[in-house]
């Protein structure tokens, strides 16, 4: 029974979602909207569960004095502080000069931007490893990468501008991006689309049950 009830709910919900896509009638649209609202409500409740998990984890780390446990204090203090200032100022989000938005603009946003900025350095290190010409395929990858990179910056045009049209780096880069690259991307898209359809069908029919936890 513990297994059957969720399976029936999933079958009915999945079949309805597929049905409503083809039926624009207002009753179908209303039920769909109702289901979406419930999803939001359930999501909000699970956020409470999530915060409980976060607090429990960091409390555990502090009480057991695990490695770098002091950072857990920072996490819990920040969580409490932002929650309190958010709750005690009703217009917290609307007021850009309030303390809540100051924390957002001058603490969270710069920290987030810093993490994102690291990506540039990681791209360089990953590209260095990926482009080492150890095999024929890796050499081909290196060659196409060099052509595409040079073809999209002015120095590429400077180096090959004297060549006839069609043989310059910019032309070859455009060809690589427009044809082999697009063909490969579309092949993956088609595979992904069919995979999504097959997985959805397996879930609706109850063939795929891992989401139940264990799947037995």
């Amino acid at each position, binding site marked *: 029974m513990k297994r059957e009830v969720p399976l029936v709910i999933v079958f009915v919900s999945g079949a309805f979602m*597929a049905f409503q*896509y*083809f*039926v*624009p*009638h*207002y*009753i*179908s*649209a209303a039920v769909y909207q109702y289901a979406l609202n419930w999803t939001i409500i*359930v*999501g909000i409740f*699970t*956020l409470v*569960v*999530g915060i409980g*998990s*976060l607090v*429990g*984890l960091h409390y555990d780390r502090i009480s057991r004095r695990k490695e*770098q446990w002091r*950072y857990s204090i920072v996490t819990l203090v920040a969580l409490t502080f932002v929650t309190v200032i958010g709750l005690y100022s009703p217009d917290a989000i609307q007021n850009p000069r309030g303390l809540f938005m100051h924390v957002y603009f001058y603490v*969270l946003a710069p*920290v*987030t931007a810093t*993490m*994102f900025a*690291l*990506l540039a350095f*990681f*791209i360089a*290190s*990953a590209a260095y*490893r*990926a482009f080492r010409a150890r095999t024929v395929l890796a050499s081909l990858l290196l060659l196409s990468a060099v052509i595409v990179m040079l073809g999209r910056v002015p120095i590429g045009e400077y180096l090959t501008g004297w060549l006839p049209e069609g043989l310059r780096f910019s032309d070859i880069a455009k060809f690589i991006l427009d044809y082999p690259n697009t063909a490969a*991307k579309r092949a*993956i*898209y*088609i*595979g*992904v689309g*069919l*995979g*999504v*359809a*097959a*997985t*959805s*069908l*397996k*879930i609706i029919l109850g*063939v*795929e049950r*891992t*989401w*139940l*936890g*264990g*799947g*037995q």
Partner: protein
Amino acid sequence: MRHPKKVIQSRLAFFIYSVIAFSRAFSQPSSELPETNFIFRYEMLAPPPGPPATVSAMDLPNDPGKGIIVSWQKAPGDNDVFHTVVGYAIYRSQFADSGFTLISRIPGGSSSYSDSDTSLVNGRKYYFKVAALYKNDTLYSSPAGPAVPEPQLFHKQRIVVLALMLLFSGSALFLISRARRGKNVYVRPIAGIDAVDEAIGRATEMGRPILFVPGLGEASRVATIAAFTVLARVARKVAEYQTRIIVPNYDPVVMTICQEVVKEAYAAAGRPEGFNERDVYFVTQDQFPYTASVNGTMLRERPATNFYMGKFYAESLILSETGFVAGSIQIAGTDELVQIPFFVAACDYTLMGEELYAASAYLSQEPQQLGTIKAQDWGKVVAILLMIVGAVVYFFSTPAGDSFSAFVQGG
């Protein structure tokens, strides 16, 4: 000839054409020839103002009801040359000859308006007028209608999707039943999945944990559901080998499911006491703070193996490069096309697109699951055939196709 220069003065439009001589040898204008040989001057008067013509109103197709679409022919002067129509005003009434009230104003250049006012009543008749708004004049069309809003029971524009869905589902069901009857289905080896056992064994030998990152997708994303499948398999092996698994989560719903999956896996392995709820935890629903937290976990715990399965965005490379620095074996799987190259560059194994979805069937080897993989292959065959037909049809619609036809016919 260069593109005409357009000069608009009030209701007059001038087109000035310049003709430049080119020498045969060069694609650039020759310096030896005069640049401008002729100038034509053509003057055109803007048409006199008039109301929008042929106004029609009809039920909005494929809608839940309470929708009417009003369309008209643009008023004189509403074109790319003159732009003398400032906008259009739409009026509605329940009577053909009176009671019209303004419902909307829209900018010039429009030729239709979709009236989806919730106050409309399905089954009731409505009439519409459209007024062209000139700078100094407002000119009304004659009433159009009646139009009766009705809800539709079937979205006609989605009939092809329905046909393909039925075809695919039918094939899948047929292949599932065939697989159940014992017909063998071959699935090519997937290196990333084959490496799972080896990676968990390595973690056990090294006495280090395993990190499983289920991505930034919600539980409703199919890629995340596919990630649960891989997690179930990994957690089962982890429980058998008595290793530790850490699952940091971006979404609280995903966290709840991951906890259940790992808990069940420990129970199935006969070690329910080994499950630690604190190891499957929620971090935050902010992308880069989540990334920072996972990176911190990697550098503190030094996991032997990192799994990245599900939806990933800009954080994919930040995570996988940090994992590389931490010296972990890394197995990734995502259907996010843009992130696949990053994972390929930084990870030891990558499940690309559909391989992530195939992982479930590949791991379980259940006939009904394998049947759906076969259905995917049939779908690909249909897609390839459609592409070939499309390419041939397109070719014959081009001048090259015409020449080819003439050549074949001996012309």
